[in-house]
């Protein structure tokens, strides 16, 4: 199957330049390739100096490699952004209401909107959180929503990330580097700033401190440690917020509360932005062998003595089997029509869908329900016959474990590759902060598939990143 030609965000089918890209397009015409090449090398040096690296699982090689950075920004117009932001605010509000509901009265299950079994027998739903009240009823304080574009007005949500979405440090660093590389370009455009993200994050976390907190809440970032692939981001965000970066052994529980060891003695901690997965958080509640977490922290949390962000158990909202119900959630909780579209999704656990998926593997993308990071997925049109046959066997063995979606013709953006400037497929992850209010900075992480024709943008699969410019009116 040949994919329909993808929508290019700079150049229309007839060759005309879209308004948002007029300045950039001219600049690209006037700028010699050698200059771009030089700037790319400069960017590499800047990233090395910043220390921003990324460990890729299961690939060997240099564990301190850089995620490839493309020096040509992606541009969104003010109205494009506004519509997306409205849709994201609506969606994340509904996701948090869903989480509060399934961990309390379960009205959406009682109403038969979502099958009870799909939630309650899902490994991402944690019974330990049933009935636990969290401040402000906020579960996903930081959500990263993966979006793709297929046309002028066609934006789809590909995936919600409600647990510990990463990538925001790239949004901030990409902007920083771009401003150093191309100050003149910034002078010619009115680009919305993103550098208030750290303050917005800190405000969000403080707003969600336990109600009984006295004085200014103490916030920390909890990391699994230097061997985690996102360790750079953990330390970066702690730095941006001006708070301590801690590991499990730096914290302890006493008198039902959580304390941090400091040179001046123990200090009570009120809010923990934790980048450790749920099941490693507390060996006294979950996996008894985990050494990454803090023994007893779940008891302090469930007693309302400390806030964990994101909340434990938030993963049930971004489970791929639940994804198909998000538009229904928006209608159920908010009584509104969803602004953003979902990608049509086949549930392989249902016999009709499975039959369709097996017959049309060559045209579909198939994903593991509990997978992430682009691992274990099949991109039908790009796979060999043998790969599809092997995948079909896995599908038949455990159909419940898979969903399938049509292969979307992801939009393309001009990208600087070996052959010069050429269109490459992109996706987008904006970040939504939920505290007393919802906050967003105008920007996000654009990921780009650097290989010609590739649709897989994950950094673990050879993807890169770009700066994202939201133009102001």
């Amino acid at each position: 199957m040949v994919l329909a030609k993808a929508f290019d965000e700079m150049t229309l089918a007839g060759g005309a330049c879209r308004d948002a890209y007029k300045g950039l397009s001219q600049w690209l015409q006037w700028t010699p390739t050698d200059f771009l090449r030089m700037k790319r090398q400069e960017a590499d040096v800047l990233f090395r100096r910043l220390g921003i690296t990324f460990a890729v699982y299961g690939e060997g090689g240099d564990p301190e490699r850089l995620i490839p950075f493309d020096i040509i920004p992606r541009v969104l117009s003010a109205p494009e952004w506004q519509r997306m932001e409205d849709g994201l605010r609506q969606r994340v509000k509904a996701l948090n209401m869903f989480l509060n509901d399934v961990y309390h009265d379960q009205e959406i299950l009682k109403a038969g909107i979502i099958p009870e079994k799909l939630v309650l027998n899902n490994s991402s739903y944690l019974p330990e959180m049933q009935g636990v009240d969290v401040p402000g009823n906020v579960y996903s304080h930081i959500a990263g929503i993966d979006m793709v574009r297929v046309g002028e007005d066609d934006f789809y949500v590909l995936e919600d990330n409600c647990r510990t979405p990463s990538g925001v440090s790239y949004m901030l660093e990409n902007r920083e580097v771009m401003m150093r590389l191309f100050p003149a370009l910034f002078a010619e455009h009115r680009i919305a700033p993103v550098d208030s993200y750290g303050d917005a994050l800190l405000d969000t976390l403080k707003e969600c401190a336990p109600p009984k907190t006295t004085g200014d809440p103490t916030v920390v970032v909890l990391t699994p440690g230097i061997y985690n692939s996102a360790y750079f981001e953990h330390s970066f965000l702690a730095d941006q917020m001006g708070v301590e970066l801690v590991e499990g052994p730096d914290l302890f529980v006493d008198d039902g509360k959580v304390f941090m060891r400091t040179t001046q003695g123990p200090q009570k901690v009120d809010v923990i932005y934790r980048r450790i997965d749920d099941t490693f958080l507390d060996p006294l509640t979950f996996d008894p062998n985990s050494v990454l977490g803090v023994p007893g922290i779940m008891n302090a949390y469930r007693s309302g003595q400390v806030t964990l962000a994101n909340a434990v158990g938030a993963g049930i909202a971004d489970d791929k089997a639940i994804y198909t119900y998000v538009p229904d959630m928006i209608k159920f909780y908010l009584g509104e029509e969803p602004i953003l579209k979902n990608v049509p999704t086949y549930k392989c656990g249902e016999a009709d869908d499975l039959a369709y998926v097996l017959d049309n593997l060559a045209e579909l993308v198939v994903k593991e329900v509990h997978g992430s990071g682009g691992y274990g997925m099949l991109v039908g049109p790009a796979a060999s016959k043998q790969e599809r046959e092997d995948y079909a066997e896995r599908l038949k063995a455990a159909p419940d474990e898979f969903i399938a979606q049509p292969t979307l013709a992801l939009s393309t953006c001009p990208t600087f590759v070996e052959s010069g400037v050429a269109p490459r497929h992109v996706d987008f992850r904006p970040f939504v902060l939920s505290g007393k209010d919802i906050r967003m900075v105008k920007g996000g992480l654009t990921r780009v598939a650097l290989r010609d024709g590739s649709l897989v943008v994950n950094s673990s699969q050879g993807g890169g990143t770009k700066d994202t410019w939201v133009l102001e009116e």
Partner: protein
Amino acid sequence: MISVKHETRYRYETPAAYTIQSLKLTPQNTSGQHVLSWSLDCGQDATIPSFVDSFGNLTHTFVINREHSDVLIRVTGKVETTDVSGIIAGPHDPFPLVAYLRETELTQPNEALEDLAWSVAEGGKPLDLAHALMAAVRDRIDYQEGETQVETTAAQALAQGSGVCQDHAHAFICCARVRGIPARYVSGYLQASDNMDEVYEAGHAWAEAYIEDLGWVGFDVANRICPSESHLRVAVGLDYREAAPIRGLRLGGGAEKLDVTVRVVQENIQQ
């Protein structure tokens, strides 16, 4: 009336700097038991912080944050129990029944467990099926102390064919869920009596299965009986991890010596 005196003492070879324990050692009132008095004493003056977990278990978080060489947890209490043929109406349960069909790490079915679950014929009443499962599990897992640990899974216990009450409960829970019967884990105390099988553990564990028209019914798989007035129900969960009487960790301390004494006796209420 059952009278309980349960002491757990840890002695460390070298002093430990920090000990934390999550304790589910406090029984609640049910249709079959009424708590007359109960106390949890860890040798500290301050009150131990507590909360009620999702399953309704009163959970204490006990911490010693200074150098120490031993830890003593003493539970004493008196509970009026009645024989309700194992049928339990407990405190409010927030979970719909389907939640009790979840697989957990310790009760994950494998082929052998599924075969065992389906070795019992279809067609009977759910209560008969549950009793038959209890017998089938007990026939395949001998009572042997010291061959399994707290983290042993139902599959491992079945494979080696031996275990303790915890393993019997896990295997039964797994088989019941495989057959579509909601099931959960109970930790508690057992008072010795004549009609028991060969098994006697004062700190005890059994299972409960949800039987239509009856509600939750207890199955003391190790003893092949439904709990009676000799059973004192303390904590409940999907498996051992959620209902464990004590889960703890310490910093330092070297080797550990553990002494547990449990005295559970029948007392006549004095006139």
